[in-house]
């Protein structure tokens, strides 16, 4: 017997041990660690995203405002790229040779986000002409393919601020919503942002099987796992495109805003904010350049005055004080005060009036906008003996003011809205000291000055509330979303002010006479000859930025009003002159559909700011 025969067992043991190690290793690889399954999927499946067309946007009359245009993204799969004729390629896509070379070099750098085996964006939004040229020759450039996307297109150059714009997602948007993927487009501002979910629709995916060279080998499960893209829902806005356009036309040389609302529903008919810009500028490849151009423009065209500017309401605010006075019982419709051209308060100080009005009642005071009258009213409200302190009566006054939607956000569907400012009693406590202030300290609130800041939207809502004699619906921009029943319940909720309808009667009468009776502050712009019963209140708001703002609120017709409007023209002077004319013209445009007062229109268009 061979003395070493025993060693056969050692040899056998080595064999078996190796086999066992392999089995354990395979058990780990194939059964315990499932990460390989995912890696295999990543390897061999290419997800082709089908981008749905974004929902269209219509005005209240079914006129198309925003639609889509095809655009072509040139994609690159870096690993597949072979050497090619860079000169021809660069000319096909309108880039310099250096730019093309740089982009290719960049795309081939492996990073956490850049996988050289997967397609990434090379040039976004080729024009249709470039695409046509490139398409024929694309076969010469392995590693490149074109993905169709849609771009926003605008029927007119209007309503840029409120429509908003669409842009590529940033990392924070991706974090917030998993739906968003690198390279997607989402609404960045305005309606595009507010109604992003509705407008974007749903992306679809086609799953393709690819080999190691990323060559498509067929579709996964014969397409059974693919999902079709769902087109975004169309929006019907409350806007009247014609009115919006007309407002922007009238105010083209001004800084300011005009907001019109349908009182019976809270639907916003127009939201003019000037200076404005062409929404088409913020589309496509030149968006970034245009955006920074707009951002550095000293006129600040990107600033959405309608919802963001804090203007003092000026004399338009007198009607609010009138209503509160009536409600509190410190003012009667026939209460008379005498105006000698100014109001004495706090000893020797004088708040001037525009005229020496003599003795007036409430109606006349509204119609002729007498400062002295409303100083007295305001004094009586705050010094009301019913309440223990100015603080208490001020807080009640403030609540009443805010019941018109002033000093707070509506939180409707308007993005970037600001709240305006109706100062709290706490604010005055801080400024003057607790119990160290009284009606005379804050007397300029009576005529809508001091710290008051009201946005044009809030102002229009105030006009709406008066037109409705005591209530409003939250002003909103969208009337209907396709395939969805009704609108947001929030927009159907009636907000009621704590004032008697009778009190409104007196105020409305005053506003009516302001327009329709000689001596009324808005008599210049009356619309009687057109058969329109308009009620209005003028305002000339002092402000720290130079000349007074021209302010005007109005509604028409007097009974069953169809439109309420607020107009601000910055540093334009007397209320009726500019803001009043614009309001009057827009009311006519909306109610009649046409414009018959060419001279007035021409006059408005002559507006010019003095050169600085």
């Amino acid at each position, binding site marked *: 017997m061979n*003395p*070493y*025969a025993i*060693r*056969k067992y*050692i*040899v*056998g043991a*080595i*064999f*078996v041990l*190796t*086999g066992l*190690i*392999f*089995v354990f*290793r*395979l*058990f780990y*690889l*194939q*059964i315990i*660690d499932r*990460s*390989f*399954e995912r*890696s*295999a*999927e990543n*390897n*061999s*499946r290419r997800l082709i995203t089908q981008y749905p067309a974004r929902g269209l946007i219509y005005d209240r009359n079914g006129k198309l405002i925003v639609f889509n245009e095809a655009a072509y993204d040139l994609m690159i799969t870096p690993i597949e790229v072979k050497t090619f004729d860079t000169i021809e390629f660069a000319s096909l896509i309108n880039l310099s040779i250096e730019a093309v070379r740089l982009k290719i070099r960049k795309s081939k750098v*492996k990073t956490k986000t850049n996988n*050289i085996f997967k397609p990434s964006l090379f040039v976004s939004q080729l024009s249709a002409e470039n695409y046509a040229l490139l398409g024929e020759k694309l076969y010469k450039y392995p590693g490149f393919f074109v993905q169709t996307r849609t771009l926003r297109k605008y029927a007119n150059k209007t309503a840029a601020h409120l429509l908003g714009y669409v842009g590529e997602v940033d990392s924070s948007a991706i974090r917030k919503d998993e739906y968003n993927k690198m390279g997607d487009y989402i609404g960045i501002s305005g309606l595009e942002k507010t109604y992003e979910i509705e407008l974007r629709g749903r992306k679809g995916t086609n799953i393709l*099987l*690819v*080999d*190691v*060279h990323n060559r498509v*080998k067929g579709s996964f499960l014969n397409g059974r796992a693919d999902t079709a893209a769902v087109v975004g829902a169309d929006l019907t806005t409350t806007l009247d495109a014609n009115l919006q356009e007309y407002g922007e036309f009238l105010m083209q040389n001004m800084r300011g805003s005009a907001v019109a609302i349908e009182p019976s529903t809270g639907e916003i008919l127009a939201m003019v904010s000037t200076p404005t810009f062409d929404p088409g500028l913020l589309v496509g490849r030149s968006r970034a350049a245009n955006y920074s151009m707009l951002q550095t423009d000293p006129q600040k065209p990107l600033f959405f005055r309608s919802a963001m500017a804090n203007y003092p309401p000026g004399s338009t605010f007198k009607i609010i004080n009138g209503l509160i006075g009536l409600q509190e019982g410190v003012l009667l419709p026939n209460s008379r005060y005498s105006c000698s051209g100014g109001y004495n308060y706090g000893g020797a100080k004088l708040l001037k009036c525009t005229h020496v009005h003599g003795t007036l009642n409430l109606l006349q005071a509204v119609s002729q906008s007498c400062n002295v009258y409303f100083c007295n009213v305001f004094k009586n409200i705050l010094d009301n003996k019913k309440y223990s302190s100015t603080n208490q009566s001020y807080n009640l006054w403030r609540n009443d003011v805010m019941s018109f939607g002033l000093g707070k956000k509506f939180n409707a569907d308007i993005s970037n809205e600001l709240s305006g400012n109706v100062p709290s009693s706490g604010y005055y406590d801080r400024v003057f000291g607790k119990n160290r202030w009284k009606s005379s300290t804050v007397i300029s609130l009576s005529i809508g000055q001091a710290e008051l800041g009201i946005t044009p939207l809030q102002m229009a809502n105030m006009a709406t509330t008066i037109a409705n004699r005591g209530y409003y619906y939250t002003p909103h921009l969208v009337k209907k979303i396709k395939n969805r029943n009704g609108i947001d319940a929030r927009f159907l909720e009636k907000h009621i002010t704590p004032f008697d309808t009778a009190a409104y009667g007196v105020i409305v009468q005053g506003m009516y006479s302001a327009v329709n009776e000689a001596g009324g502050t808005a008599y210049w712009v009356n619309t009687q000859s057109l058969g329109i019963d308009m009620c209005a209140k003028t305002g000339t708001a002092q402000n720290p930025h130079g000349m007074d703002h021209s302010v005007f609120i109005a509604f028409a017709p007097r009974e069953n009003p169809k439109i309420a409007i607020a107009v601000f023209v910055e540093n334009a002077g007397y209320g009726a002159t500019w803001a009043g004319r614009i309001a009057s013209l827009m009311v006519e445009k909306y109610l009649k559909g046409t414009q018959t007062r060419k001279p007035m229109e021409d006059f408005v268009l002559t507006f010019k700011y003095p050169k600085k």
Partner: protein
Amino acid sequence: MNRRTSFVRNIDWTIVLVYLLLVIMGWVNIYAAVYNEQHKSIFELSQRYGSQMILILAAFVLAFVILLIDLKFYTFFAYPIYGFSLLLLVLVLVMGREINGAKAWLFIGSLSIQPAEFAKFATTLAIAKYLSAYNIKVTSLRALLSVGVLIFLPMLLIILQPDAGSLLVFFSFSIMLFREGLPGVVLLFGFVIAVLFFVSLVVLKVYIIAAIVLIGYLVFMLYTHKYKETFIGFSLTVTLFVIFWGIAKIAFKQVDFYYIIAASFFLSGTVFLVITFFRKIRHVAIFVLFLFGSISFSYSVTYMYTNLLHGHQRDRMDILLGLKQDPLGMGYNVNQSMIAIGSGGFAGKGFLQGTQTKYNFVPEQSTDFIFCTVGEEWGFLGSLVVIGLFMFLLLRVVFISERQRSTFSRVYGYSVASILFFHFAINIGMAIGVLPVIGIPLPFFSYGGSSLWAFTILLFILIRLDASRLELLK
């Protein structure tokens, strides 16, 4: 009973069946690995699966012929066959065409052969012939050197190609030599060298030397039971260490522990050696010299590693040892291979459903990485079957070798087991990421005529020898 029927009956049909199973399974998996939609038939000759079918049929003919040849042919022509294979290895260096940086292929008409594959069984025959000669003992130095030369000659020629995979296969003869009586210490020594080599690359030198010294003293203590001497020696080392450390700290303001440990150990070791020599304690010299050797070896490994290995071999080693993480670079092959096998799961994705191998994510998926197709499409179960079959084959070959009466047949059989085992272990070990990527085929499975034929010849000579085991007594 006539001689022919007894011969047929004496053929080990079990191993023939296993061979057939492996070859057919290999063919089916090659079909799945390089499946071409345009050529769906497995018999399509323009595709690898079609040509593999031809190669398999040729292998069957070869096997049949081998069984027919008289077994004296193999003993008689062992050296001429060996000489002829060396000639082919020289020829390939002269006339071979360079593919992937190696001159490994000879082209004869449309036939391409890999002489290194055939050198394996030729060397096997030669060693068997030599060791079966009268009065040769593996334990003798002369015999060992002669066998070494027989193995070394083809290795030298293969290194010139160069083909690292085929080269390493020749080390597998050590398993056979172990069975024939090569001292276990030699194998253990080789094993320690291999372990030291890998450890030297992964672990910091200073830890290695500290570990070697500690383990050395520990083993010495346990082996000789000389606790006092161990304590003295160890104290000596520690004392010297502290002194050297103090000197280095003061004189050079910086401390390199590696050199301090090395210096203190070499000095204390020498002193210890002298003391124990006079006290007549045995084995100390072997221990101390072995430790000195280990330390010098680990020190020189880095040098060898950077200077003797090729760039891509070093890269592959680095990836295996975890020194480099680069899934898209050098580690790509192993990574893709593990993804393919891992994604197979328990029962696999099903025949022709493997995306990783079919869509070429795994490189060499019909040759060196054929096991990926098994793992991906047949899952853990399929892998188990393949490993089980190989295990059975290997143990069966050992079993067959043990029942041989002649040294020639036994040596030959063990060589077959060793070579098959080495291929099996390296190939699958590489595919599942436990061994570095060394390009050698999986026996009977991988695509390619040379390896299939060479393994068929290798195995069927054994079957032929076994069938006549009762006639051969020498």
